[in-house]
């Protein structure tokens, strides 16, 4: 059914259609509207049987999910930013125990300096946690990816993060086609794990493993991630048959077939990029866009295929590794190893800074550029702080100085 609604409300409705039996929630912007909406669905009796647990931290939220999932319940939580980091230990635990928890990450920057706006620093920091990571381009895709996420998680016995841009998607009102309960039920069978905490069939879960088998356990985890590379396209195809629209998959190309330049990105910025590509095509530039939906596991072959014969690949990232550079770009470089294409990293849209068409046009029509650039970096502001820092080598936070400079102070 087509509805005009907020992204968070739509995701909450989609999650409810998946019939989670336990939801654990701790509020953090910009995830709050999702868990608020779910609490209303549970309290109002629309979502049942379901236990909604208000916990005292994100660490407890995911820990309670671990317990609930191990006891055989379909389990959901949502978080963002600092909250995701506060869960870190439990993230690795959930994947190590093979528990198919589904979690929405309303992508947000990480402090300090504290910043509540959107970028991908949070989920990118957990890329090695053993969770599958899917990135939504639109609210429609966020809805559809959640339905697929439960199926994928339970099929592979792996937890799945559905990442959607904080505020840009979570708080945006868009037209969304919500599936019916019958459609979702047909797509997603009830959760029936092969091992649960059951007094009738006692098992010990979470034993200590030493050097004799730890590598093998980790390797098997890696194989399950690789298996996801096979299952994700299969699920996306099944989803399209059942719901009548394409969504998900590993990576999707837009006007890439004959492109010399391809911009690869994740999340909501893809909409802007496609508009820019359309405009530049009218100017005669052979440019395309690749949208990466699945970042973990990383689809090396699919990325190599979609980037095709492009000579220039620009990876637009909403996060980066300080002291190293692009995170996604490093994966793209290994995907293109030996192919001869130049790969550029552009870090853009950190902490909620708008990624504008004007800046992207300038970037893409300019010269070859540096291997690593920061879109719209305020060079004057940086230079001022570097001058100040150069006068005396003393420790201290730079953020306050920058704010003073921006306010025109001394």
């Amino acid at each position: 059914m087509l509805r005009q609604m907020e992204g968070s409300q739509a995701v909450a409705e989609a999650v409810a259609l998946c019939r989670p039996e336990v939801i654990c929630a701790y509020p953090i912007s910009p995830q709050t509207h999702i868990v608020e909406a779910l609490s209303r669905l549970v309290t109002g009796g629309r979502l049942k049987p379901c236990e909604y647990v208000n916990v005292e931290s994100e660490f407890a939220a995911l820990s309670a999910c671990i317990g609930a999932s191990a006891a055989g319940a379909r389990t959901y939580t949502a978080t963002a930013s600092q909250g995701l980091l506060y869960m870190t230990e439990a993230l690795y635990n959930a994947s190590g125990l093979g528990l198919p928890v589904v979690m929405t990450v309303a992508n947000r920057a990480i402090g300090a300096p504290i910043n509540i706006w959107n970028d991908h620093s949070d989920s990118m920091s957990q890329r090695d946690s053993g969770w599958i990571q899917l990135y939504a381009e639109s609210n429609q895709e966020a809805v559809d990816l959640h339905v697929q996420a439960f199926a994928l998680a339970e099929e592979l016995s792996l937890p799945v993060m559905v990442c959607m841009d904080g505020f840009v998607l979570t708080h945006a009102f868009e037209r969304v086609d919500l599936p019916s309960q019958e459609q979702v039920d047909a797509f997603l069978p009830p959760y029936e794990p092969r091992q649960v905490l059951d007094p009738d069939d006692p098992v010990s879960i979470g034993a200590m493993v030493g050097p004799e088998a730890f590598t093998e356990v980790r390797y098997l985890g890696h194989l399950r991630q690789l298996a996801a590379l096979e299952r994700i396209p299969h699920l996306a195809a099944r989803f399209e048959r059942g719901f009548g629209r394409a969504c998900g998959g590993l990576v999707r190309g837009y006007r890439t077939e004959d492109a010399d330049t391809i911009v690869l990105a994740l999340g909501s910025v893809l909409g802007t990029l496609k508009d820019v590509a359309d405009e530049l095509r009218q100017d005669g530039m052979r440019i395309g866009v690749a949208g990466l939906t699945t970042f973990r596991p990383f689809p090396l072959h699919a990325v190599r295929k979609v980037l095709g014969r492009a000579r220039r690949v620009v990876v637009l990232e909403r996060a980066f590794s300080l002291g190293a550079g692009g995170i996604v770009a490093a994966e793209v470089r290994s995907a293109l190893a030996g192919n001869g294409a130049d790969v550029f990293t552009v870090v853009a849209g950190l902490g909620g800074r708008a990624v504008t068409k004007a800046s992207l046009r300038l970037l893409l029509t300019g010269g070859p550029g540096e291997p690593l650039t920061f879109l719209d970096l305020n060079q004057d502001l940086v230079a001022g702080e570097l001058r100040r820092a150069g006068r005396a080598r003393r420790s201290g936070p730079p953020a306050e100085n920058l704010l003073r400079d921006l306010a025109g102070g001394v």
Partner: protein
Amino acid sequence: MPVERTKFYQVGSFAVGNRLLPPEQRAVQASPDRGNSLTCGHRACRGCGEALGARWAVDAAISATAGRMVVVNATGCLEVFSTPYPESSWQVSWIHSLFGNAPAVATGVAAALRAKGRTEVRVVGQGGDGGTVDIGFACLSGMFERDDDVLYICYDNQAYMNTGVQRSGATPPAARTATTPLPGQAFGQGKNVPLIAMAHEIPYVATATVADLRDLEYKVRRAMEFRGARYLHVLVPCPLGWVTAACDTIRVARLATESGLFPVFEAERGEVTGVTKIRRRVPVDDYLRLQGRYAHLFGDPPKTDVIARIQAGADRNVRRFGLVD
């Protein structure tokens, strides 16, 4: 060849395991149908108080629930010595997740059971003092505050024994640990989690020791009569960390209560409802002298001022809980 005479327990006594008592008075451990939750072959040290306490407590819970229960275990000695892959000493449905999240995992298990309409299956969380009073404290307090249907048992051996005897929030004053070298743990620190649990006004809070295993069984059984959050704090001496003889575990636990240093009581909804009186009060010296971690107090000359401060703490417990008639 010396002949060892077989000794029988006195008829009518409450000696542990006495099968000559009427059935309703027998310990759970006296029953051939006991749960054997923590079975033989585990790797606890000789004289381990925690292994003893855990076996009695979990078996009592099995007895009280007719086996319809799940155990959630924090990281720590108990977890490490009981489940070295591919072996497990647990004969109950058991899960270990992390060091600091056992109460939250237990909350999740209880929520799943409720959602599935299986509320006859009960949940017991357990961990050492580090996992309970320090790193798991936020999760514990959250579980209490929400009144989740979980019995959480803390086996308190007063330091991080699994990692080599480092100080925890439950380490008592003057005790020497690897991170509180002489003169030992400072006075005026540490937290009393049974009292903090009572401040949450949860249905049931109790303390116990491995010196009175019948009392430990009673408190587990009593705890399982309530729904909602319950807390049981069990003093379990650690021969390694306390530097005591393996054969002195029960003795030192008894002296902890008889000296007044460890008050044994139970409370409902934040009010004390029962206190185990001290039968034969002893000075704290008797308790401290047995333990190498306090050896620095008994040099030449002995640190009488420090011992007097510890004695003052015991005296305060006696007054506060009415431990002596």
